[in-house]
């Protein structure tokens, strides 16, 4: 509190007090319980506290718990990395009725689920522009147990994406083209197969999602599907359903992440909302930070400091020069 007062006094003296500064008091902010969520919450906390003089309390939780609390109780006031797809039916009415507002509709770039290849495969085969090109060459991705077939590494048993990959495997007619859909068994199996392919310089083709440390660590390359998203009808009624008759080839459904604030905060937050709208993590920055967190086993707080030190060129675009100067001073 002392620091807050001191900062306000300093501000009043230097720039003349703006209402937003004076009003920024206590904020409750969601800290999602996965690495990128932790990082984003802690970066926001540091910037808001040091740059804007707020007093931020982090509330740890998962997607549904945080959303329910914001929607029903109006607390926490900010959720940085709210994944939208699973909440669509609840979120859309809340946004329409104005209980919640999406101040930033893409706080992290290059995110989502899809198909990936290692960088050495991409470099050796520049002709692989899309998944359609790769599908024609199963011989370059031989399955270890049946080398006559190409191995496509799908999703572990029981995950939602297992069905989606199985449907896409059929939609792209991959079996007839000489592919085999491999079940890696678990997250460890999936990660291990990516790690092995990269350590040995072997080709690998399969499913993963971003932002994640393993994608960042090995600089895995996302493969465009080469076809457009074929509509919600196809995705929701066929791709995600077991044994659908006629799955059509499609790109993966767009995963969306919003930064969401409550209605109260939308009205009172002032320039903090401007900051949240501008605060966009590039895929590279987020990827490299997730690698840092995994390698160093760093928590969100440590990672936020590391981010602010290493990626100054990025975050200084989000704030005014005066605010940037204060944050640099605090580092």
């Amino acid at each position, binding site marked *: 509190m002392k620091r807050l007062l001191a900062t306000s006094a300093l501000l009043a003296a230097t720039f003349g007090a703006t209402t937003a500064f004076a009003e920024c008091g206590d904020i409750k902010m969601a800290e999602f319980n996965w690495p990128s969520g932790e990082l984003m919450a802690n970066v926001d906390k540091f910037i808001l506290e040091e740059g804007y003089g707020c007093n931020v309390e982090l509330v740890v939780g998962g997607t549904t718990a945080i959303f329910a609390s914001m929607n029903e109780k109006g607390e926490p006031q900010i959720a940085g990395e709210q994944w939208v797809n699973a909440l669509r039916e609840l979120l859309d009415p809340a946004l329409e009725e104005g209980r919640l507002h999406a101040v930033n509709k893409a706080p992290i770039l290059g995110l989502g689920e899809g198909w990936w290849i290692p960088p050495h495969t991409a470099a050796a085969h520049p002709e692989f522009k899309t998944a359609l090109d790769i599908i024609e060459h199963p011989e370059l991705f031989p399955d*270890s*147990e*049946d080398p006559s077939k190409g191995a496509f*590494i799908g999703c*572990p*048993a*029981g*995950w939602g994406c297992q069905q989606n990959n199985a449907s896409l495997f059929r939609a792209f007619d991959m079996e007839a083209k000489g592919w085999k859909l*491999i*079940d*890696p*068994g*678990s997250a*460890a*199996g999936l990660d*291990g*197969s990516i*790690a*092995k392919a990269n*350590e*040995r310089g072997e080709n690998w083709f399969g499913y993963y999602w971003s932002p994640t440390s393993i994608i960042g660590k090995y600089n895995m390359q996302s493969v465009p599907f080469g076809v457009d998203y074929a509509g919600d009808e196809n995705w929701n009624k066929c791709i995600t359903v077991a044994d659908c008759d006629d799955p059509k080839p499609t790109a993966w459904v767009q995963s969306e992440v919003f930064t969401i604030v409550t209605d109260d905060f939308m009205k009172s937050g002032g320039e903090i909302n401007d900051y949240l709208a501008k605060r966009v993590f590039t895929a590279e920055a987020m990827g490299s930070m997730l690698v840092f967190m995994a*390698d*160093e*086993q760093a928590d969100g707080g440590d990672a936020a400091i590391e981010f602010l030190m290493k990626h100054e060129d990025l975050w200084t675009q989000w704030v005014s020069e005066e605010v940037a100067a204060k944050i640099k001073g605090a580092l």
Partner: protein
Amino acid sequence: MGLIDSLPEILVEFPEMGRADLRDFKKGIDSAFLSFSRENGELIESFFYPLKVFLVWFEKLLLATPWPLMIIVIGILVWLGARSWVLVVGTSISLLLVGYFGMWEDTMRTLALVSVSTFVCIAIGIPVGILMSKSDRFQAVVIPILDIMQTIPAFVYLIPVLLLLGIGKVPGLIAVCIYAIPPVVRLTNLGIRLVDKDVLEAADAFGASPRQKMISVQLPLALPNLFAGVNQTIMMALAMVVVASMIGAPGLGTQVLKAVQNQYLGLGLMNGLAIVAIAIVFDRVSQKFGKRLQKHSETIHG
């Protein structure tokens, strides 16, 4: 409280390694293993290649065999092993049930993995057990290793196995064998060591060579223990089926994982019970087979 305050700090706070040093230490292990895997991975993979080919072939064989034929073949094997009609009928009924509930293919995959794993475990385990019984020094080295193999959490060795061999059946088999091999080694060793010294003296008196003594005297007399070991190895191999599925060895374990992930009680129970059914068949057959062998050898010596 007073005591804590009056103690020097070193006794209160454990003098642990610095955070950075500790991290470097762990990273050092990681990078050493990764470079080992980069350099020797392919060699190790080619070493296991014949096993992989056999596993794939055996699984394909079981899957391609028409189910009535498969049940007849398994029934004959059970009869040869146990000589018990009750067991043959029980086995056939449980196989029919498993098939009826849509688990035939996964059961065949699991059966393939477990039979080959058990075979590999026994092929390695019994010779190691024999060597252990002959040399106290070797025994002193091997026992702590067996202790580690039995108690270390499977997830710990899954990571290096994955990096060396990727996902699939062979890494699954290795994971199974690491866990399942100790009983057969221990009980082979124990069984041979427990053979009556007087009997050995008698064998010496007849001028038996060490080799003859082992094959005609020690091993037959050790059979009850040895078969208890084989039996335990089979049971433990089946218990590891779910873990093997976590690194891409498909079968009943895959369905169990799926059930765990989604809280599908019915699916989990059905596949779990199918594993139990295989286990009971293996258990009863190997026990009866062991007992019969024993009688057989007793008549020779008796």
